[in-house]
């Protein structure tokens, strides 16, 4: 056994032991992949930790992921080179139950380790952002910046609230009848003019939730009031995970504007400068770029923002907030990207290890040709999503039938090998295809004539159904892997050629 660079003696001993006792496990080299993934991960973590020192600045995380993805891909190629050297199955070695499942698990872990490395920059970025800014701290600072701006620029702020008079009806039938003179409603006329517009009860509920103030004239007539904008800095998700909440304009009106007292201006200016230093992003880019301070119009908002560099502060807060909560908010997306990337590569590697090189590439070619054929059929027949999904189910059934015919075959045929490869590859996605087809058909029914006026009573469980399908697909694959797929591969691969 040659000494590998960067491999400690305990791992070398483990490698030797696996070679002599567990050839299948040794051939997968999972222990080495994990070791090198950990090494790369640690080095990358340190590097990212140093690089992402300021959470308020914009980082091109996509660029980082692409770069690390390329490094992981090089690692994957190296792993493949080593993996393809030794194959117990293709050497007709001793056959043990669960070896197929074990191999699949080892490939999944190895590939998963390589894919997981790509998530490190994002994870470190989040960790650094949380280290730099507390959840409550950001919300308090946003409130302080807005309140300070209000106090400093009171003279520029508008004080008039907007009013909107609405008449509530059961159903809006005629849109053109939106504005109507309502001379019987004195208070509404006084505030908003002699017009009102019709809203239905659903919109009423929405408005009641959104507006800053409301006056109910009677059961079907409301006047909604909207406070002028006093929020100069905000971030939509900043208070999602804090006990403190972002104070909105109406609250500032009530606490600062309505009973305005002359502030200690130098102290406020000093504090504003401190907050600017703390949050203002130096880069003009942000995840939600508000643009630079240079090109502004003459509204009070723009004037105030320009005076205190509030756009750069807002960009900095956005950057920090986005980094802080990207994993909490997107964990399911990240998990899916990780899982499906790993699963698809694992399936390809597993297939490659159990089939001939020629059949593997013929399977890829078949998949491409079928995709082109299906696309052509769709274009020519104006088919929709349901047609594509139906095609996929037909293909799967076809592949399954041809693959299962291997049980009765005495010679190795390429077409059976291709069908078996595609049968295996599609299996974890079949429940998803069925659920997607069902959802697509439901969606299509909504647009059928006469469906518009029906009330949808069933709850929307689409996400749950897809989640169940995802889990079911993986379980079906794992259940069938040893008793069906590996037995079929055993029979097909070892069979004599014609």
């Amino acid at each position, binding site marked *: 056994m040659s000494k590998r660079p960067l491999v400690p003696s305990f791992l070398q001993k483990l490698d030797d032991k696996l070679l002599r006792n567990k050839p299948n496990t040794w051939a997968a080299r999972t222990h080495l992949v994990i070791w090198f993934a950990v090494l790369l991960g640690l080095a990358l973590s340190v590097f990212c930790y140093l690089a992402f020192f300021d959470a308020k600045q914009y980082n091109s995380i996509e660029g980082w992921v692409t770069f690390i993805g390329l490094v992981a891909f090089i690692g994957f190629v190296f792993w493949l080179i080593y993996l393809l050297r030794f194959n117990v199955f293709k050497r007709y*070695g001793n056959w043990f139950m669960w070896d197929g499942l074990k191999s699949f698990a080892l490939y999944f872990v190895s590939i998963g380790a390589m894919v997981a490395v790509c998530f490190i920059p994002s994870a470190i970025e989040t960790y650094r952002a949380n280290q730099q800014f507390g959840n409550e701290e950001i919300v308090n600072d946003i409130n302080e910046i807005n309140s300070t701006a209000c106090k400093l620029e009171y003279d520029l702020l508008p004080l008039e609230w907007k009013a909107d008079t609405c008449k509530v009806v059961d159903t809006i039938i005629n849109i053109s009848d939106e504005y109507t003179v309502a001379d019987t409603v004195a208070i509404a006329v006084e505030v908003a003019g002699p017009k009102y517009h019709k809203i239905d009860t659903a919109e009423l509920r929405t408005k009641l939730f959104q507006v800053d103030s409301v006056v109910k004239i009677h059961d079907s007539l409301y006047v909604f009031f909207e406070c002028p904008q006093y929020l100069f800095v905000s971030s939509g998700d900043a208070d999602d995970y804090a006990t403190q909440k972002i104070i909105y304009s109406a609250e500032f009106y009530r606490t600062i504007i309505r009973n305005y007292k002359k502030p200690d201006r130098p102290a406020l200016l000093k504090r504003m400068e401190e907050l600017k230093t703390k949050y203002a992003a130096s880069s003009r880019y942000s995840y939600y770029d508000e643009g630079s301070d240079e090109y502004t119009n003459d509204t009070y908002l723009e004037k105030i923002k320009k005076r205190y560099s509030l756009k750069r502060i807002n960009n900095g807060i956005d950057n920090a907030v986005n980094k802080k909560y990207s994993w909490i908010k997107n964990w399911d997306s990240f998990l899916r990207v990780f899982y499906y990337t790993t699963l698809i590569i694992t399936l390809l590697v597993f297939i490659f290890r159990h089939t001939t090189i020629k059949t593997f590439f013929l399977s890829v070619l078949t998949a491409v040709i079928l995709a082109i054929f299906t696309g052509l059929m769709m274009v020519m027949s104006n088919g929709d999503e349901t047609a594509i999904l139906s095609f996929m189910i037909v293909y799967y059934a076809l592949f399954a039938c041809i693959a299962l015919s291997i049980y009765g075959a005495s010679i190795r045929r390429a077409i059976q090998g291709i069908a078996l490869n595609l049968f295996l590859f599609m299996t974890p996605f079949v429940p998803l295809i069925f659920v997607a087809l069902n959802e697509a058909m439901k969606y299509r029914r909504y647009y059928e004539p006469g469906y518009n006026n029906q009330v949808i009573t069933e709850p929307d469980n689409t996400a749950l159904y897809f989640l169940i399908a995802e889990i079911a697909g993986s379980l079906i694959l794992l259940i069938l892997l040893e008793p069906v797929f590996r037995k079929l591969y055993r029979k097909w691969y*070892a069979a*004599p050629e014609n």
Partner: protein
Amino acid sequence: MIPTVATEIAGYLKHGDYAVAVRRTLDFCLDTGDDTLIENAISWSRGYHENENSKSGKAIPDNFISEAEHILQQATQQHAGISYQNNPLISAEKISKTYSGGGFSLKPINVTVNTGNVLGVVGENGNGKTTLLRCLAGQLALDNGEIKYHLLQKPDAYAVKNHIAFIPQRIPKWYGLLKDNLHFSASIAGVYGAKNDLMVNFMLERLNLSSYAHLTWNQISSGYRTRFEIARILLQKPKLLILDEPLANLDINAQQTILTDLIFMAKGAHNPMGIILSSQQLHEVEKVADTVIFIKQGNCLYSSNDKAEKITSNAIEFETAASRESIIALFGDCNVELQFNGGFYTITSGVLSPQQIISTIVAANIAVTYFRDITYSTKRFF
């Protein structure tokens, strides 16, 4: 029977045939199944090979003979009653194969191999030797006929290929260290842990490959590649070993060594096996094979099993500077047939025995630089 092997080895040692003695002693110890004894034998063999490679000037290391006697004594004690059983291994009845693309077809042929037996398949290039071997190895589907693997009950194709090892003419490249490949092969055949190390070391010593084990495929010659492939296959403990032209890349000494090694190992108690090999080296194959079949254009023209029925005349080939006329004149009315193929003369006679033919030539004081009795050799069909 067992003392004969020990006596045979003692004879080799006595007459200075140390290389053969080492190889036979290793086989002898392996058959005992005693790991300690095998380890001792490996260590002893290693000392011999290191001395041989060191060019120290000494033929053998110190204590070589005494250690050999000690090992032989122990092995003899443990070897009592150990021998292989000559069981039927594979029998093919009227198997035939026609390629769909080309016109070539292998005509119906019968083949039987028992444990410990060697079947040689000879014939010119492109006449169906490899096709026959691939059919027997389960690599090619048969058009007709049936192959029975007697040691397997209702085997599927995977079990058959696990049971048989096939070494093709062009050996696929190995990747990684040669020794790792050997450990892996032993491991996939169920030889684990310390036994794995022991068997790999044994095979390296047995085929004199220890000093090359740390190298890679590209660092060794084609002859050594064949030897490593044989070592790898033997570690997988096949019951039937099929070799397609294994001698092609070997020098003349290596050809003899490999063939005799294979015969010894096939008949060993450790993993008795049958061997089928094809080759152009007729004499080498005929020397070791229990049965030789000759294939021409897909037909089995001759099998040494039924030589009694088919051979009606005796034949020798010889090389001499004498003229054709002078040789014909020697035999006068004896009704002999003389052929010259450009290198050798072949004399065929239905009356004279091979001994009488060569005696007549020698008695006439004709200088003979080479001769061989080819009465029962497939050479007659070339």
